[in-house]
């Protein structure tokens, strides 16, 4: 239900002036591994072409931070190192 799918913005339609001054018309085309869909970009006013967004029910919930994307592996590297230091008798898992 709350499934959100990551996709990359390939085209943006900016809202036209004089329509109440809000972002409701900000739309774009987003590619999900090659499948392109029209997505409402009203929730990501600063997103640019090329940015990755997480899309749920045709609406971009937020942009994805590429720098944070590797965190899950960095954390694993850290805890593996700690485990190795804690127990030198046992080989820790290989670093990613």
């Amino acid at each position, binding site marked *: *239900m709350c499934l959100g799918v990551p996709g990359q913005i390939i085209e943006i339609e900016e809202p036209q002036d004089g329509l109440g001054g809000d972002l409701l018309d900000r739309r774009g085309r987003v590619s999900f591994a090659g499948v392109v869909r029209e997505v*409402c970009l009203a929730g990501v006013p600063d997103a640019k072409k090329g940015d990755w967004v997480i899309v749920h029910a045709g609406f971009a919930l937020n942009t994805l931070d590429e720098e944070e994307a590797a965190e899950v592996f960095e954390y694993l590297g850290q805890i593996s190192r700690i485990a190795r230091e804690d127990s030198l008798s046992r080989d820790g898992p290989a670093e990613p």
Partner: protein
Amino acid sequence: MKFVDEYRSGEAATAYAEALHDISTSDWTIMEVCGGQTHAIVRFGIDRLLPGCITLVHGPGCPVCVTPVSLIDKAIEIAASPGAVLCSFGDMLRVPGSSRDLFSARAEGGDVRTVYSPMDALDIARQEPESRVVFFAVGFETTAPVTAAAVLTARREKLLNFSLLVAHVRVPPAMEAVLSSPDNRVQGFLAAGHVCTVMGYGEYGPIASRFGVPIVVTGFEPLDILQGIHMCVLQLEKGVAGVENQYGRAVRPEGNPAARALMDRAFVTVDRAWRGLGGIPRSGLGLRPELSGFDAEEHFGKARAELDDVTAGSCLSGLVLRGAIQPADCPSFGRACTPEHPLGAPMVSSEGACAAYYRYGRNREEEHD
């Protein structure tokens, strides 16, 4: 696929499982409150990778499962009204109301259409001005912003034939309800990543300290969930109860202010009944008074007030949704209750805990290994 495949590495998952075995010394019960996570946990067998002392229980994380019978009955009634088009996410169609479901309402001639987004329902309202188009707005804070965008667009375009039957629910009050229950056994939470993508995690600090439970904002892929569990168990083992964010690539502390602003323009907090859990104060969203012209309950009559909507009969979904029992512990599981003949909503929606257990063959015997 970028941002997906790399988070499914079997090697890294094994390393996470080993790390969890290294740090776990006591029995811990951790709840996730997101149907997407429930589904991933069972589908990828994450529960089977964990040390035996860690039990994952599955909370009220499926909005379809917790939508009260009274609103489903109302949706069925609307579908049968002349000129009405009831638009819904597909998962809702087979959720049992008090006597039937939307699927049978459609078989009996009701105009029920499944849509992918409320924006699709808006298109139908534009294309069929003579129809009264109602979108059945089910979902957590993840879905509320797009519903808000749809109704605000309808107001701006004066699409007076469009309205919402609002069933939106908020996650933090449900977590408090689980923790306040006398039979609670949940000691730590994985908070639903996509809800936090919108809302941030400011609401969780007071819950973590009031109930002494660690809360880790967690994503949906197997490695996200394993890391979330690791962060939660580390806190439990150290005896601390704070809020941490595992899902930093999508979740900022303040969430997404633009999406929240859309929600605030359309909705106010209201009391809401949860199927299986009963009434929870301030746990729902309702349309702002100035948008009442777009409220389906103004056009088609109010749904029954039902603040104690606990599923009756032999369905134990209330206990399942609070994590008091696992789906396979329900005597009806896989016998009287299957996805083809569901007795309760957690067996209907693909993200319900009962359906996930059934689909991936988690039977009772295994549970008690």
